[in-house]
Structures are given as C-alpha cells and as structure tokens.
C-alpha cells in the first residue's frame, strides 16, 4: 500500500532550478505581500510560478485578483497565468469558504495539489508559506530539498524572537537562506535588532521596507499594487537575490 503522489511531488520540486519559500514563523509580517510582489517582479525576467501554501489564510489570490473559475485542466491542472505569474492556490477550490482542516489533512491537500499541477517550464517558483512550524513547514522541509529561503520579519522583538527559531532550523538543516527582509519598519524602531539577528545566523540583511500607512488601500487591484513604493522596494531587492 503506497501513495502515488509522494514520488511525483518530490520529483517536481527536485527538477526546479529555483524555489523560493517565503517564510517567517511569525504571522502578519508580510509573507504574502512580499511573495506576491516578488513573483510579479521575477516574472519580468523569468518564467515564474507562485504557490500559496497557506491553506487557512490564503491571501495571494486576493492580491493577484485571481479568477473565481477552476483553473484549466489538461493532463493535470494548468495554473492560471496572471501578469506572467503561474499561480496555484487552494482558494480555487474552497469557493472562499473556511477550510477547517487539521495538519494531517493539510498534508494530503498539499500532496494532491502538487501531484496534479503542471508548472511546465517555470524557472522560478515562489512559495507563500503560512506562519508556524507545524505540518506545512515540516512538509516543506521533507518535500523541498532545494529551496532558497527568503525570511521575513518586522523590527519587533515579538517577531524576531520567533524568526530566530525559524532561522535556527533552516541553518541547522543546512538549507540555503537568501536572506532576511525587515518589513514594516517605523522611525524609532531598534535599528540593530534585525541586523544582529541576521549576523548571528550569518545570513544577509536584504533591506528595510518602511511601514506604509496606505499600502492596504492599494491591495486587490493589481495595477495599483505594482505602482506602490512597496512593490518597487521588493523589485529592487529581487534584483540582488542570488538565485
């Protein structure tokens, strides 16, 4: 008795040249806005995919204004292409209803999506992760051995404390870390905390992004999102990523 989806899922990830899981451990630090902006920025230069693995708090479909139709089927499922980004999310199938599922069920849904999605020739897959260090994070470590992790934090010690735990696991598991983005920085925030955190794990501090009071009103309309300073910041950071 065995599960046919495991082998193909593992293989699909293994052959990808560039996988960027956007992680933190902490919630609400900007993983979804960063990963969505990053995939849009990368898509200007590479064939790019975006996979939303936050099944309980799916957000990227809102930012991308994704269709409410099922993605096309053709020997599998073809991700919807939005402004050059091939996008897959469980939100296509929940009809925007709550998805109260336990970790074991998450793992099953994750394998299912991976087994049937045809990413075809994408060069770079950005993965938007949920917070925490439960089944989604552990499944990622098990199925994606070749990720280049992008770690998001805010300047707050409530975030850095948790992010340091994520960095500890990534480093201990010898995974590649592209660096740390310090998001939602305010004037007056401790300017050393996150730099020290990055240094202590020997990862790059990739830059600060200010707290933009009006970012939220630009979300939901893609053209609007791309015209924000936030997007330009992420685009600039994306240029320097070692991918």
């Amino acid at each position, binding site marked *: 008795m065995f599960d046919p989806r495991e082998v193909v899922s593992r*293989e699909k990830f293994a052959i990808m040249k560039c996988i960027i899981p956007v992680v933190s451990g902490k919630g609400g630090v900007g993983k979804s806005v960063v990963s969505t902006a990053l995939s849009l920025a990368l898509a200007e230069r590479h064939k790019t995919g975006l996979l939303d693995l936050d099944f309980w708090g799916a957000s990227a479909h809102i930012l991308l204004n994704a269709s409410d139709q099922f993605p096309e089927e053709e020997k599998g499922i073809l991700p919807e292409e939005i402004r050059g980004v091939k996008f897959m999310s469980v939100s296509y199938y929940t009809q925007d209803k*709550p*998805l109260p599922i336990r970790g074991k069920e998450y793992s099953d849904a994750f394998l299912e999506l991976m087994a049937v999605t045809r990413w075809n020739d994408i060069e770079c897959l950005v993965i938007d992760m949920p917070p925490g260090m439960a089944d989604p994070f552990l499944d990622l470590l098990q199925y994606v051995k070749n990720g280049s992790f992008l770690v998001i934090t805010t300047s707050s010690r409530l975030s850095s404390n948790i992010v340091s735990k994520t960095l500890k696991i990534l480093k201990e598991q010898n995974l590649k870390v592209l660096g740390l983005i310090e998001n939602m920085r305010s004037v007056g925030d401790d300017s050393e905390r996150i730099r020290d955190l990055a240094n202590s794990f020997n990862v790059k501090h990739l830059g600060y992004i200010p707290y933009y009071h009006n970012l939220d009103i630009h979300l939901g309309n893609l053209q609007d999102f791309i015209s924000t300073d936030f997007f330009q910041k992420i685009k600039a950071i994306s240029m320097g990523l070692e991918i």
Partner: protein
Amino acid sequence: MHEWSLAEAVLKSSIKEAKKRNLKKLLEVKIVLGELQAIEEEIVKFSLDSLKKGTMAEEATFVFINEKATFKCRNCQNEWTLKEANINEESIKESIHFVPEVVHSFIRCTRCGSPDFEVVEGRGIYIDEITGEDL
C-alpha cells in the same frame, strides 16, 4: 481530464516501487479509487494504458477497487457515508474532485454539525499492491 496526472503518478510510483523490490517487469497494479474524489476509472485506465508503453509496466494489467467514502466526527464520534452527506451542487463535487480535503469547506457532521471530522475511508487514489516478475 486531470486524471491523466494521477495516472502518471500511479505509473511512476509503481515503477519506482517495483525497482526497489528488484522486479524486472510489472504485471499487475491494484489501484484503489476513493468514492469522495470521484475519479473516472475509464480515464485513468485509458491514461495508464497509453503511458505504460515502453516501460517495465508495458504488460501490466490495472485492477481497480472502489472504496466507499465514510466520515467520522472527532467531536461526537458519529459516522456517516458520502451518500448521507448529500452533496448535490456540481461545483462542490468538482472542487472535491480536485482537492478532496475541501470537503471540510462544504459539509458538517450530520449529527452535531462539527467541521472537525475525518475521512475514514474512500478519500482518493492509492496503490494497494503491485505484482511483477523478478526476471
């Protein structure tokens, strides 16, 4: 027609398992189809028969076993069947066909109304056993 990708998964993983067992040829693959996912047996069969060409499964027969779906509530221990869940809307059936876990977005325990239930049997596709020749 997303069944094709599941057929690919079945073939790849069966061949991988066969190699692990030092088999030279795959003769039979027993595939369980869970009622919840409502996979079209004919399409999987057709896909497998065309995918197997030129592989060690070329002569294999694919046997299908249908498994009824049952649910069990973690809150009140009630058990019920897919039929009793009474899912009628086509778009919901279609959603579950793609990702069976989204059933938790659409149905509740038939006794206590909890969303916290388990799909005990009949969730989706898996391989029950493979047989082959080792020479």
